[in-house]
């Protein structure tokens, strides 16, 4: 990292002020993982934020080139681990599209339900951690309490709480657990009763509002220019929900509204996510009673060979648009795989929106951008 020359500046009152560097991370409570932020600060005011990546780079894209298409799926668990189900789904959809394979309706519906549950789980965790970042430690546990119910649903059906790997090209690894529907139906009213509590504890809180309103403002133009997606872009008024524009799985059969806000500040991002949880609950409720009967997968060859060509599939994870781009030469391994992760482009605008704020603002902004570091460092 090059060091810029730091010129002492004379402010108009005659005081000498000096900028200095400070390393936030790679091990810092607010960076949510091994991300290093090189801050240039003047007193408390942030002059520049340089994210420094690479601390947990595992070259997953390169690994994919030597793995079969079934094996790639489980690697995407390790990207954005809070949306692992949706990531898996993206790869599976991409492979299925390339094979022109039509999966049963049942699979589509189950995938969508699980995807929305993943989104809620991710957002509850984000909510808890956001509270912790702005100093309200208690919200963390309330968020986890609700997330735990979803994790139980996942564990019972998929066999794991975080790295599910439940999707396979052609369907699902196993059929849903007999308790699945019952548990989801228990969860919906439970969470409906807890969400207003989230509002009472944090949303309405005057300190919280002061900490987030007008902090880290992202304009719609910048959101588009930086390639932001997900709740971050939607909070700036950029309508970009992949679920609306390119519905996949069973999302074309459900009614939901894309949550938009225009303020573009941290509080708008907060509001969008809270509202998205309500929407996700609605989506699940529409589908949970109508899971069609049928098989949980269609048979594929044991060795999947994609036809020659490029294939792209995008989905909406809890953080934004996740894309899978596969170039195939017709062999059993992909020639090249590229993941378009929402975290990287969302992080890239951090410098743009955090400059001029205080350290506390940076933490609040980081928390509402909601990055997951393994998603950025693939």
């Amino acid at each position, binding site marked *: 990292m090059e060091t810029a020359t730091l010129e002492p500046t004379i402010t108009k009152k005659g005081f000498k002020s000096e900028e200095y560097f400070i390393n936030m991370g790679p091990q810092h409570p607010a960076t949510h993982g091994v991300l290093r932020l090189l801050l240039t600060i003047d007193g408390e005011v942030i002059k520049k934020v340089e994210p420094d990546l690479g601390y947990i780079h595992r070259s997953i894209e390169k690994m994919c080139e030597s793995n079969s298409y079934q094996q790639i799926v489980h690697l995407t668990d390790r990207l954005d681990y809070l949306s692992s189900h949706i990531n898996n789904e993206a790869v599976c959809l991409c492979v299925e599209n390339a094979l022109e394979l039509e999966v049963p309706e049942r699979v589509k519906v189950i995938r969508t339900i699980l995807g929305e549950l993943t989104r809620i789980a991710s957002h509850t965790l984000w909510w808890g951690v956001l509270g912790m970042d702005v100093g309200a430690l208690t919200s963390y546990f309330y968020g986890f309490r609700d997330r735990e119910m979803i994790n139980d649903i996942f564990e019972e059906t998929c066999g794991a709480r975080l790295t599910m790997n439940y999707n396979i090209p052609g369907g699902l690894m196993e059929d849903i657990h007999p308790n699945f529907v019952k548990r989801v139906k228990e969860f919906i009213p439970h969470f409906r009763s807890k969400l207003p509590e989230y509002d009472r504890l944090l949303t309405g809180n*005057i300190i919280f509002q002061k900490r987030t309103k007008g902090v880290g403002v992202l304009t719609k133009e910048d959101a588009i220019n930086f390639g932001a997606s997900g709740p971050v872009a939607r909070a700036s008024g950029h309508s970009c929900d992949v679920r609306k524009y390119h519905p996949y799985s069973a999302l074309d059969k459900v009614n939901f509204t894309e949550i938009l806000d225009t303020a573009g500040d941290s509080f708008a991002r907060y509001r969008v996510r809270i509202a998205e949880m309500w929407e996700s609950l609605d989506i699940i409720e529409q589908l949970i009673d109508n899971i069609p009967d049928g098989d949980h997968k269609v048979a594929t060859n044991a060795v999947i060979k994609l036809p020659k060509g490029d294939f792209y599939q995008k989905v909406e994870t809890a953080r934004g648009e996740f894309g899978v781009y596969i170039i195939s030469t017709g062999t059993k391994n992909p020639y090249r795989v590229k993941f378009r992760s929402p975290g990287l482009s969302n992080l890239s605008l951090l410098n743009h929106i955090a400059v001029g704020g205080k350290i506390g603002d940076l933490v609040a902004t980081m928390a509402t951008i909601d990055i997951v570091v393994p998603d950025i460092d693939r």
Partner: protein
Amino acid sequence: MGYFSNIYHGIGTLLTGMRVTGKYFLNARKGAITQQYPDNRDTLKMFERFRGEVVMPHDENNEHSCTGCQKCELACPNGSIEIIWDRVIDPETGKKKKAIDQHIYHFGMCTQCGLCVDACPSDAIKWAQNFENSVYDRTQLTRILNKPGSKVRAGVEE
């Protein structure tokens, strides 16, 4: 007047927040969501699909159903499974037949993805639900799944 209504409103929101936490404080006796982990070992039961560790079930005759087809070895993304096999002469038919010598499972490398269990045509391996997997030496994580002296159950074909 905005000044005072701000204060009034601000204090109101703070009290609302305190009501939420206060409610939980009063119900603290029954509300704990945390697990008392080592104490509840006896009652702690994982879900039956929980992926803890790959095991190979043996029946009472010390027989398993692994034919040595190596599908699991192929399916595994990270080479956690190694199958050492041999051709043995089937005593009944007198034909040569593939049989496993050792089904080696490197638990330390396994990502619990479940592809091997999914790939196995004869359901010879399955998931165990144990989760306390730490050991002091990682060589202990390399396990031979078929028990010594075991053989493939009759009738299980590749």
